[in-house]
């Protein structure tokens, strides 16, 4: 692979202090790389650290440990001017279309908010730009004078996208942008995002638990479990042949339409452990049907089993032999 990496994340950790001196290890030693122009997805159950990962990447939360390289530069060592550029080029789309827009601002003001900071434009040119952006995301110019509560969920999500696009970004973290929408609207929004990616050359970090939608949009996928990455691979190999036991269980739960369920559904025993007190060794060992003694003692790291297919499992070769 010769394409440049936009983001290189190494051993990223983000811990939150919890009550009674506990620590929630929301993200614990995650490494991945995002290439220019691709869609990298993070999937996993609720509470596995996907969202924290995305927010830490953009500096919303300070990282506890590890390094984030943006265009080869460490993000926490950026100069003032570089940081401003970082904040312009890297944007975020949020999960909840109801709380991501200030209820007291009109759509036009919301979209202009970042423009005022980064682009020195006269008011007239800003209004013009708002109209263009609204058109680009499939709305009309007269939306600019409306308030968020007058819009439907899908329209609000489009406004959220327009707000991000107003910054002329190169990278967008999409934090479950479709989870709060109806299925029919989901498809519209995802297709809009794919179109925008093609037209504007955007790079996406797509965070979702909707496995079918992830397959539709992603180039590469990282599977997270309890704050760690268990498997990273290109989309098709991952769906065709998941190698980590957790991924296998997760993907066997995708409901199939029309065709017979291929393979047996794998049922996991027990509950997902608390991130305050993860099991020793492999995080998944407490629920893994194949766990051996080694798995309960040492934590596996990501290994490249096939070109571009990384798995964090001691017994991956045995199980996929």
């Amino acid at each position, binding site marked *: 692979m010769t394409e440049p990496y936009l983001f290189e994340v190494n051993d990223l950790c983000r811990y939150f202090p919890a009550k009674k001196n506990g620590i929630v290890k929301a993200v614990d030693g995650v490494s991945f790389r995002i290439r220019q122009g691709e869609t990298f997805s993070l999937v996993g159950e609720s509470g596995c650290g996907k969202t924290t990962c995305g*927010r830490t990447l*953009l*500096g*919303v939360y300070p990282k506890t440990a590890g390094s984030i390289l943006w265009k080869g530069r460490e993000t926490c060592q950026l100069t003032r001017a570089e*940081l*401003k550029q970082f*904040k*312009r080029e*890297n*944007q*975020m789309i*949020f*999960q*909840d279309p109801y*709380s*991501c*827009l*200030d*209820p*007291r*601002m*009109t759509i*036009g003001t*919301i979209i202009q*908010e*970042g423009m005022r*900071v*980064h682009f020195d434009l006269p008011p007239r040119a800003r209004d013009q730009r708002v109209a263009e952006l609204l058109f680009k995301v499939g709305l009309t*110019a*007269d939306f*600019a*004078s*409306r*308030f968020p*509560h*007058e819009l439907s969920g899908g329209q609000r999500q489009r406004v*959220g996208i327009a*707000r991000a696009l107003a*910054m002329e970004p190169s990278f967008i973290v999409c934090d479950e942008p479709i989870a709060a929408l109806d299925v029919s609207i989901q498809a519209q929004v995802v297709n809009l995002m794919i179109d925008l990616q093609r037209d504007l050359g955007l790079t996406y970090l797509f965070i979702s638990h909707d496995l079918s939608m992830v397959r539709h949009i992603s180039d590469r996928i990282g599977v997270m479990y309890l704050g760690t990455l268990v498997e990273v691979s290109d989309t098709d190999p991952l769906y065709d042949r998941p190698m980590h036991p957790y991924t296998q269980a997760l993907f066997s739960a995708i409901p199939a339409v029309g065709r017979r369920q291929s393979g047996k559904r794998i049922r996991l025993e027990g509950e997902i452990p608390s991130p305050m007190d993860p099991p020793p060794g492999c995080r998944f060992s407490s629920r893994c049907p194949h766990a051996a003694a080694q798995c309960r003692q040492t934590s596996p790291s990501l290994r490249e089993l096939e070109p571009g297919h990384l798995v964090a499992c001691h017994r991956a070769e045995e199980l996929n032999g």
Partner: protein
Amino acid sequence: MSQIKKNPPSDAFAPGDFEIVGADTAQSERFARRPVTYWGDALRRFRQNKLAVAAFFLLLLITIMTIAVPMLSPYDYAKQDLKVRKQWPSADHWFGTDDLGRDLFTRVWQGGRVSIAIGVLGALIVAAVGCVYGGIAAYFGGWVDMLMMRIVEILSSVPNLLVIIMMSIILDSSSIPTLLLAMTITGWCPVARLVRSQMLQISRSEYVMAARVMGVPPLQIVLRHMIPNTLSLIIVNITFRVPGFIFSEAFLSYVGLGVQPPNTSWGALASAGQANLLFYPYMMLFPSLFIALTMLCFTLMGDGLRDALDPKLRR
């Protein structure tokens, strides 16, 4: 199989019944709503609420009267005239006279000055103190927030009335400033809580996060998101607190801890009138009427403001 009607009924529409009128896209700008600001929109919605507007104008009238009447009246509010004691309302004395022969019409409006001033000032003081206190607690967070909120909890666990009465006795309240101090000394606690919780909620909302991701400076986030979203809450809170202070003052004056004669307030007038209630009910009726009317107006106006300032209720 069910029967499917092959022929449409005779009264069905034929293609000729419709005419294509077309849509003029060049005119679509005309139908777009004029851009409005948040406050402009709030004003428009407040105007639509007839009751609130009426309450506002009634309050305005009462305020003007309290200012004008004591200045223009031929009678001095403190001047006693023993020849006209305890007179029923008449052309000379519109609200009658009290047991020392003072004109009640003048005294009611003079009392209104004190009552309304105390109500408005009290509400403004608690709002200001509460905003600063709650804002600091929310901004610094952590142990500062913890300590400040525990203090609020301790202060508000003491019965309010008890504090007011004790403070009045300690301060020997006979002037308006000491009366205000007694009433506001713990009165700011609910406002502080309200402001803190609202600020915390906003600072963790996704629209503030979006602004931070975009690199909007913190001061601008405070000015554009935090304050506007808290301000309307505070305005509504002030409006609802005013009648509470008027009532507290009336209560204190009623039990003899408030304004001292010859100065007066609606509460003090009602208290004086109560002694003669059986034979001269008008002495109590007028001040009580104005207490009730003012409190009602503030409540109605507060309702209107609350609805007007909440854009979710925009129609």
